[in-house]
C-alpha cells in the first residue's frame, strides 16, 4: 500500500536509497545534494540500512570508488551536483564504457560562473555525451519513482549502462511537498537482488575490467556501448510499465499533457513543466489549444517518438535550462529540430533558454512563450531563435 507523506526531493531520494539499500555508496557533499549523503549516513548510523558508505575526499574519488565497487560486483551509487559532476567527468566515461550499472542521483545546479548554487541543467547537459542514461523529474514524487526505476534499467542484461537520475536543485530538492511512498518490501521486490553476470570478485571466472584496447577493438567496444544505449529505450519503457502496474503512476519516455489536439506545444524538462501545464490550462480556457511535452528521458534521446508526438501541431517551443554557447541553441534546441528533420516532420520550432542559475520560471513566463509561438505559427519563416525568457537586459546587447 502507498503511504501519504510530505518531504523534500532530497529526503525522498534518501528514503528511496534506504529502501533499495545498495551495497556501496561513496559520496562527497556539495550543495544542493548534500542532504542526500547526510540523510543516508544517518540511516546507516541508526541501523536502518547497511550500505557501505565511503566518505571520500572528492567527487573524482566518489565516482572512482563507485566504479571500483560496481566492477567488483557490488550494487553502487553516489550523489552529486554541479562542480561535483564536472570533477567526476573522466570517471563518468569510465563507468559507462566499462558497462557498469552505477546509479547517480544528481541534484541539478548550474556550473560556474558566476559562482551560484541554484538550478539549471548545465551540469547534466555537460555530461550528455558520456554514455549515461539520463532521466529527469518534475517533482519530489518523480525523483523518488525514477530513482527506484534506475536500478532495474541499469542492471538489465540488455543495457548494462549507468543511470543519472536528475532533479532540480532547491526547486524540488528543498521544497517540501506531498508524496506517495511505497512499502520497503514492495520497493525491494521491484528493484530485485543484484546478480551481475561478470564481476571481479568471482574467483571461478576471472575477468579484466578497463584494460587498454587497440584500435582493432576500441571502435567495436564503442559501437556496442551505443547499441546498448539504443536497446535501453525499450527497457526504460518496460520498467516504467512494470512500475505503473505495481504502483499506479508514472510515464515512460515523456509525458504528453493535453497534446492530442494541441496547436502549440512546449517541450520542457524538470520542475518547470508544472508552470507550463498551468499556463496550457489557462490558455485552453481562452480557446488556445496549448499542450506540454515533458521529456523524462533525455538519454537515450527518443528522437522518433518526439518527432511523432510533434508531427500534428503548428509550432513547438523547445525549452533549454542550459546555454551551450554555440550561437544556435541549447542541447534540446539542437536535438529536437534534428529529430523532426530526420523524420521528415516540418513543424515550426522556436528555441528558448530559460531558468539559468535559478532564474525563476513562472506561469506567466510560460504563457508569454505560448503567445510568441502562436504569433510565429501565423507568420513567415524568419523566426528569431535562441530567445531568452525573463532576461532583465535587452537581448542583442
Amino acid at each position, binding site marked *: 500500500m502507498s503511504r501519504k507523506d*510530505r518531504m523534500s526531493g532530497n529526503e525522498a531520494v534518501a528514503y528511496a536509497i534506504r529502501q533499495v539499500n545498495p551495497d556501496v555508496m561513496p559520496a562527497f557533499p556539495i550543495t*544542493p545534494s548534500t542532504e542526500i549523503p547526510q540523510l543516508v549516513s544517518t540511516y546507516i548510523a541508526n541501523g536502518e540500512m547497511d550500505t557501505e558508505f565511503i566518505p571520500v575526499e572528492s567527487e573524482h574519488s566518489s565516482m572512482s570508488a563507485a566504479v571500483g565497487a560496481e566492477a567488483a560486483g557490488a550494487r553502487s551509487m553516489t550523489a552529486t551536483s554541479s562542480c561535483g559532476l564536472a570533477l567526476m567527468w573522466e570517471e563518468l566515461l569510465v563507468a559507462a564504457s566499462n558497462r557498469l550499472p552505477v546509479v547517480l542521483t544528481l541534484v541539478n545546479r548550474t556550473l560556474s560562473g558566476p559562482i551560484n548554487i541554484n538550478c539549471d541543467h548545465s551540469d547534466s547537459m555537460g555530461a550528455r555525451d558520456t554514455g549515461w542514461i539520463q532521466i529527469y523529474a*518534475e517533482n519530489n514524487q518523480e525523483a523518488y519513482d525514477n530513482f527506484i526505476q534506475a536500478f532495474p534499467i541499469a542492471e538489465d542484461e540488455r543495457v548494462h549502462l549507468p543511470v543519472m537520475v536528475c532533479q532540480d536543485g*532547491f*526547486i524540488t530538492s528543498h*521544497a517540501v511537498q*506531498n508524496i506517495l511512498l511505497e512499502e520497503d518490501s514492495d520497493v525491494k521486490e521491484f528493484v530485485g537482488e543484484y546478480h551481475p553476470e561478470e564481476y571481479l570478485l568471482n574467483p571461478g571466472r576471472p575477468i579484466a575490467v578497463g584494460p587498454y584496447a587497440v584500435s582493432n577493438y576500441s571502435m567495436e567496444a564503442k559501437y556496442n556501448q551505443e547499441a546498448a544505449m539504443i536497446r535501453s529505450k525499450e527497457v526504460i519503457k518496460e520498467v516504467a510499465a512494470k512500475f505503473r502496474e505495481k504502483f499506479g503512476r508514472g510515464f515512460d519516455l515523456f509525458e504528453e499533457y493535453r497534446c492530442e489536439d494541441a496547436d502549440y506545444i512546449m517541450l520542457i524538462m524538470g520542475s518547470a513543466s*508544472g508552470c507550463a501545464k498551468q499556463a496550457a490550462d489557462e490558455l485552453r480556457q481562452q480557446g488556445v489549444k496549448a499542450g506540454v511535452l515533458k521529456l523524462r528521458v533525455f538519454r537515450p534521446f527518443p528522437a522518433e517518438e518526439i518527432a511523432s508526438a510533434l508531427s500534428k501541431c503548428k509550432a513547438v517551443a523547445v525549452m533549454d535550462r542550459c546555454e551551450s554557447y554555440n550561437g544556435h541553441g541549447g542541447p534540446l534546441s539542437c536535438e529536437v529540430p534534428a529529430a523532426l528533420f530526420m523524420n521528415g516532420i516540418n513543424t515550426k520550432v522556436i528555441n528558448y533558454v530559460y531558468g539559468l542559475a535559478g532564474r*525563476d520560471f*513562472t506561469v506567466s513566463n510560460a504563457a508569454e512563450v505560448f503567445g510568441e509561438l502562436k504569433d510565429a505559427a501565423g507568420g513567415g519563416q524568419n523566426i528569431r531563435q535562441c530567445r531568452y525568457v525573463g532576461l532583465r537586459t535587452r537581448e542583442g546587447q
Partner: protein
Amino acid sequence: MDSKNIEIRWHGRGGQGAKTAALLLADVCFKTGAYVQGFPEYGPERMGAPITAFNRISDKEIRVHSNIYNPDLVVVVDETLLSSVDVTSGLKEDGALIVNTDKEPDDIRPFLNGYAGSVYTVDARKISMDALGRYFPNSPMLAAAVAISHVMDKDDFIREMRASYEHKFAKKPEVIEGNMKALTETFAALGY
C-alpha cells in the same frame, strides 16, 4: 482570503527561523489532508541576510514550482526589513500583512508603499521572552499566520504543533510547554 487555496510569503533574516516556520506550516497543514508546498529561496547563505520562504496550501494538487509573486499573506519576521525590502510587493489587496513588532499597524503603514489591505502586528519578541525566556520569533509568527489566514482549524493546529514539538524537542522536553504557550499567547493577542 480563500483558506482552501492560499499562498504565503515569509520575509526574515538568516537564522530567525522563517524557513523553518514555512516548512512547519507545510507539515502541520499536510496532517489535515491538504496539499502543501513549503520552500525557501536561497541566496548567499549567512546569518542576518534577508531571506524569503514560501507556502502554497491547497485542496488541489500543487504543480507550480515558481516563487510566489502575488501572495494572499505576507509574514515579516523582522521589522528592520521594512526599510530595505518591498515586503508588500504583489500582495493582494484583499490579503493581509503580519509584522513582528511592538508597534501598532498604523505605525507600520507608512513603510508599506501605500498598501491598503489589512495589516496586523504581533509582538513576537515579548511573547517569546515571556513564554520561553529567549527570543525565537518563528513560533509566534507561525501561530499568527494561522490565526489570520484560517488555513487550518485552531484545535488541529495546536494538536499537531504539540506533536511536532514533542518530536523535534524529544531531547529538550523543557522547551515544549514554552513553545506551546507562545502559540496560544499569539492566538490570544490576535483574538483568534
